[in-house]
């Protein structure tokens, strides 16, 4: 599974981007990421999850390519859906691989 995780904007307006190939992760991390993508129903999420009143919030762009499916989601601020939040946190904590 190929994942890109971007964090854009915020007060500082910085861009950071990392690519993660789950086959190169430690097996327990890879399993957790697969599980969290599934649990978040990632491929059925709308392409943009916005909280329109936020200003200077981070914008997170997550793209997942599982081989047979591809999807990208752009999220403003901290997601309110706990499953998506868990996925975001996990991706934030991983180093590029």
């Amino acid at each position, binding site marked *: 599974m190929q994942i890109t995780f*971007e964090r*854009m*904007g*915020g*007060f*500082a*307006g*910085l*861009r*950071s981007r990392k690519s993660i190939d789950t086959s190169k992760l430690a097996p327990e991390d890879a399993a957790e990421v697969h599980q969290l993508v599934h649990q978040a129903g990632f491929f059925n999420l709308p392409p943009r999850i916005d*909280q*329109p*009143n*936020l*200003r*200077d*919030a*981070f*914008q997170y*762009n997550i793209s997942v390519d599982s081989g047979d499916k591809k999807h990208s989601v*752009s999220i403003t*601020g*901290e*997601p*309110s859906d706990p499953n998506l*939040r868990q996925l975001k946190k996990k991706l934030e904590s991983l180093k590029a691989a």
Partner: protein
Amino acid sequence: MCNHTPFCSIIPPHILRHISENATGALKQSAFRALLLSQSMRARRSTLAELGIAAQPVGELNRTVYDAQETEDSTPHGVIVRREGDGPTTDVAVNQAYDSAGDTYNFYDQIFQRNSIDNKGMRLDSYVHYGKQFDNAFWDGKEMVYGDGDGVIFNRFTVDLDVIAHELTHGVTAYEADLAYSGQSGALNESISDVFGTMVKQWKLKQAAKDADWLIGAHLLEPSINGKALRSMANPGTAYDDPQLGGKDPQPATMAGYQKLPNSEDNGGVHINSGIPNHAFYLACMKIDQNGFSWEKPGTIWYLTLTTRLNTNSNFQDCANATYSVAGEQFGSGSLEQQAIADAWNEVGIQVEEPGSVKVKKHKTTPHSKHPKKKMAG
């Protein structure tokens, strides 16, 4: 000030008010201008109130600071650690959020007779210690939220008054022009926050335009980072240059460097292209009077533009035209102030259009040359 208006401050405010209410044309304008520029707070307050800008009674400052205790929820949660009137705590972030919210409130109250963010006395709630080593500060539509920074690249986000005033100004903008937060209107929204953010800082420090640093977030970067601040309004694109921040400050100073970006990139680069109107404001301040204060003439022009002219879809050109037209109304058509506004926008690559689409030519003389005296209408 007396150079630009026939009425010096020696004329009592009540007489100026009488003239501004009863005279017509240039005389009315001059009297109004003198009233607006008067150091008398009472005169300024009633002038703005007569215009219907600040009809609300002055409310009371009501601050509450919450400790989010490193939680990072979609809606911030926390425990109350300081209420209005409470003394300082041992927590620096709490005191900074409290004090700077107070300075920003007092600035809007004393300079623009604005009764808090919504002009109706809205309470000011701040959350500190949001998230773990969180590298950001934001406005969530109701309250300000500050992270502690990672301690390697970023200091705590409560450290700079201009950053806190920037966040509160997002609230003001939401209650006024409500500039849509993407593309050019979004960059204008960001610029308005930097413009008033730096004004609050300069006001607190009592700095003239030429003495101010025009930096946003001057204490936000940790010492090991190669940078002065996050943004420079005097020289956009020069605030930092460090691989840990992704390289060089990407802000353009002029339209030649405008970056057209997709919405997935910082809502179309709202924190990037804001450099252009930021620089226009800096230039306007320097051209109007580099020994003057940003929050006086330039601040009045920008505030009236924000509160009476801009709307959700306004772009840079709209803002340029509006500031030019407001400057004409406040200081006289063809005044030094109005020409300075046209020149400032022209330098960033935007030619001001007068109603009827006539482009305004660049002023030929030096910015601080004496402007010919306007004729007074009888």
